[in-house]
């Protein structure tokens, strides 16, 4: 009763939670310090203010992480961290006196998070240091094992509202970043480039060889400086080129490596024969610029861990009932016949039989069904289902690795890496580019026949100038910049090349549940056949239940009844009197509200409770109040802006909807998708739908969220996973888009097309430079000075043009 009245009163104004700045909807908590959207937020706020850490809110008003979805503070949750095998996965260093661990915390999102988490020593004595890496969303903690334990540290972090993601996937967070080697290579190349320049400029300024043995000295120093560049900084290019030659898959690295090798070799020959001062400055500069291009590409990585399997969706451990009481067992050790207990909001780790009489399981993520399913005792609960309402006792039927969920991952589509258009087109381009350069070099040499020295000179000059340095910078810098800028706007690409694939899609397939519709929080409620008075009774009773559908009805009817009441000028509401509430899990709830018998639930339940036949669509909730009956359809609201976005997309793309849900919502989406709607699709069905479209020659962008989309995401030309909030579970995909940004998809696609045009423009510019250089080379007039000017200038033009154009376009085309 209290709950009902507080729901009604807080729904009136749009109050924002003091902790997380979310709107306080149903279940809001009002206390002396302010309004909160849930108890969790209130308790975090209390902890922070009691420690004088109010500055947290001063940095960013929406700094707090909403606790509405938190699994509730439960000390057994981290019991698994006492298990040595699990501990060793997280611990990166331990000498008995100091332990260093790395937690992955997906909810880290702003400066306040950094600040608060680095104050961890205030909350947990024994913590020596806490350091956040905002980009990778990890927290490094050092603590004294004598004073605290890993489990207590994890609990302290969780109590602040940052749930560490401890999943069954192994050793992902503690690897040192691959970018270190690239920085070292860049440092060495930069060092050599600068010093070689110092030793080369005197000769250029002098206009001829230096006297007094200095030329020899400088030449020798240049060679010494260039050797580490060849062996260390440029080594990756040679390795990739060698692999390309061996596997006969062409890559742009082949002409690049050829050019670098000729550049170095010709310089050595020139220096030893004293013909010229060599091209060592061009060589070091080239490698330096190439590595800068790689850094652009690398910078955009490491933000989101993409390569996840079904395991990262499962919990690390589960509470099992074995001989000697309940214990926490890692899910790998679950055996057939084990009895387990899964708490509300937790995920069932293995296919299991329900031991309780009844329960509710939400399969939205693995099948796309949006309405939680009622399960009766003895029925099977599939792995991946999320328990709703109250804890369930289950008996494991199959081990984790044999569950139906796991079998989703055995599909061939996950084993084969996706063909990227850039690699494809790059390989073909590199093929004829290499061939053209060699042919031109041979022709140049023949043209000077019989002057062999001049012929060799021209041939090597052609190969040097044809080295596609600027060309190979164009794509990484453009796409890397685009990827970084898209990332700041909520679209994360797995690889820069995905931007090019995005620019080429002509078909967009959407999943429904969780993709077009938001999370279960905002639901549209449409009642049929009930008057405002009866609806109010239904609402009051629904507020008594914890079932998600009831809560949605309670919240949704609130606004509906109020507008109705205002229209009819009724008197304001009085608090109701509710007695005899009885909830039948998975079927419905009954009670007497203000003397009137009310029943809400499935058709058969309501029929039995109210002694009358009720008829209606299959996917709705029935309700009877007194003499009236009717039904209520609860459907998640479409995300804001989706309609406009789909209309914009439809101009240039074929749109379709593939959903695992039943077709009860067909009329609702008719306007946007017309006849291209496919309901009741299994994961395999979705996959083959994509394959069929591709066989028709379409290039498909699949936008989905659940595990049931994983196959389709993997098969599509671009698979884009939608994630809500920050707890991102991203199945096999090429891009992750934040749910609030889905409406900006048309702008993102337009930006991707712009990126493609910029790459083409940069290709054109660098080819012009190459052509200019080639005329010099063929005339036998390519001096070291000309090369030293031409090569950096062309590289810098391309880097400036591509990065500048993408930044400028981002401010013009992308929403902030």
């Amino acid at each position, binding site marked *: 009763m209290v709950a009902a009245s507080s729901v009604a009163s807080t729904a009136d104004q749009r109050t924002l939670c003091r902790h997380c700045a979310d709107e306080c909807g149903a279940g809001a908590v009002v206390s002396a*310090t302010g309004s909160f959207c849930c108890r969790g937020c209130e308790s975090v706020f209390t902890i922070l*203010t*009691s*420690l*004088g*850490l*109010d*500055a947290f*809110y*001063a*940095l*960013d008003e929406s700094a707090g992480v909403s606790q509405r979805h938190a699994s509730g503070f439960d000390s057994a949750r981290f019991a698994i961290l006492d298990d040595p095998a699990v501990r060793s996965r997280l611990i990166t260093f331990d000498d008995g006196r100091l332990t260093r661990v790395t937690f992955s915390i997906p909810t880290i*999102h*702003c*400066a*306040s998070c*950094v*600040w608060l988490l*680095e*104050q961890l020593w*205030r909350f947990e004595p024994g913590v020596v240091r806490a*350091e*956040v*890496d*905002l*980009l*990778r969303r990890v927290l490094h903690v050092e603590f004294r094992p004598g004073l605290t334990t890993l489990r207590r540290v994890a609990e302290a972090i969780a109590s602040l509202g940052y749930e560490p993601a401890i999943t069954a996937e192994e050793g992902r967070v503690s690897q*040192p*970043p691959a*970018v*270190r080697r690239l*920085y*070292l290579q860049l*440092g*060495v190349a930069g*060092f050599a480039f*600068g*010093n070689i320049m*110092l030793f080369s400029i005197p000769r250029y300024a002098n206009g001829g060889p230096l006297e*007094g043995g*200095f030329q020899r*000295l400088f030449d020798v*120093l240049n060679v010494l400086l260039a050797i580490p560049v060849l062996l260390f900084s440029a080594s990756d290019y040679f390795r990739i080129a060698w692999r390309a030659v061996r596997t006969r898959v062409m890559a742009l690295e082949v002409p690049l490596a050829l050019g670098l090798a000729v550049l170095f070799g010709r310089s050595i020959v020139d220096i030893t024969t004293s013909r010229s001062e060599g091209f060592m400055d061009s060589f070091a500069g080239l490698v330096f610029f190439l590595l800068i291009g790689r850094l652009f590409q690398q910078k955009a990585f490491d*933000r989101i861990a993409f390569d996840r399997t079904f395991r990262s969706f499962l919990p690390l451990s589960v509470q099992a009932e074995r001989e000697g009481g309940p214990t926490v067992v890692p899910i790998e050790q679950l055996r057939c016949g084990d009895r387990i207990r899964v708490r509300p909001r937790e995920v069932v780790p293995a296919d299991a039989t329900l031991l309780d009489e009844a329960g509710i399981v939400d399969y939205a993520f693995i099948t796309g069904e949006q309405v939680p399913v009622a399960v009766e005792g003895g029925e099977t609960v599939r792995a991946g289902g999320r328990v709703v309402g109250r804890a369930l006792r289950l008996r494991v039927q199959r081990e984790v690795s044999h569950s139906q969920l796991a079998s989703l991952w055995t599909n061939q589509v996950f084993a084969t890496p996706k063909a990227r258009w850039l690699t494809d087109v790059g390989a073909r381009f590199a093929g004829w580019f290499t061939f053209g350069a060699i042919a031109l070099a041979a022709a140049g040499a023949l043209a000077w026949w019989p002057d062999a020295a001049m012929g060799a000179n021209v041939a090597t000059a052609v190969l040097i100038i044809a080295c596609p340095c600027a060309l190979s910078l164009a794509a990484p810098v453009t796409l890397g910049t685009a990827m970084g800028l898209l*990332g*700041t706007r909520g679209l994360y690409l797995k690889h820069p090349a995905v931007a090019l694939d995005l620019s080429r899609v002509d078909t967009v397939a959407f999943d429904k549940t969780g993709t077009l519709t938001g999370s279960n929080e905002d639901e549209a409620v449409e009642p049929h056949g009930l008057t405002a008075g009866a609806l109010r009774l239904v609402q009051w009773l629904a507020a008594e239940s914890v079932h998600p559908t009831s809560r949605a009805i309670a919240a949704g009817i609130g606004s509906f009844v109020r507008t109705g009441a205002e229209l009819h000028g009724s008197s304001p509401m009085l608090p109701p009197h509710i007695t005899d509430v009885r909830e039948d899990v998975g079927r419905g709830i009954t009670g007497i509200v203000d003397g009137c018998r009310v029943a809400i639930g499935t058709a058969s339940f309501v029929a039995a409770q109210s002694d009358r036949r009720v008829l209606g669509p299959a996917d709705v909730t029935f309700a009877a109040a007194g003499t009236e009956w009717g039904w209520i359809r609860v459907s998640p609201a479409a995300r804001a802006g989706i309609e406009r976005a789909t209309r914009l997309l439809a101009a240039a793309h074929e749109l379709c909807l593939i959903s695992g849900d039943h077709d009860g919502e067909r009329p609702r989406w008719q306007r946007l998708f017309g006849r291209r709607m496919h309901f009741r699709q299994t994961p395999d069905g979705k996959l083959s739908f994509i394959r069929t479209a591709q066989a028709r020659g379409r290039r498909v962008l699949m936008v989905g969220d659940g595990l049931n989309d994983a196959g389709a995401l993997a098969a599509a030309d671009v698979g884009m996973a939608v994630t809500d909030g920050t707890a991102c579970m991203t199945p096999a995909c090429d891009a992750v888009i934040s749910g609030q940004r889905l409406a900006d998809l048309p702008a993102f696609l337009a930006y991707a097309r712009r990126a493609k045009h910029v790459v083409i423009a940069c290709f054109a510019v660098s080819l012009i430079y190459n052509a200019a250089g080639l005329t010099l080379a063929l005339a036998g007039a390519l001096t070291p000075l000309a090369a030293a000017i031409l090569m950096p200038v062309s590289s810098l033009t391309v880097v400036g043009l591509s990065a500048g154009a993408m930044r400028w376009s981002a401010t013009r085309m992308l929403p902030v």
Partner: protein
Amino acid sequence: MSVIVLLIVAGGAVAAGFLAAFVWAVRSGQFDDTCTPAIRMLLEDGGRRLKPGEESQREIEIEVEMSAEPRRCL
């Protein structure tokens, strides 16, 4: 002219010193995260332990001076 040789040696030594410092910095992980330190330096060590019985108030002098829009690099 031998002074030039001296200068080259000295200059090379200084440059090599910087290269060594750079290598050390990369190896010790200073380039692993180039984003968070930029934020961290703007934050004060705000917050203090309250004595038992002391009222907690939201209005405690907030020492952190930052623009309204916090810096994000995600």
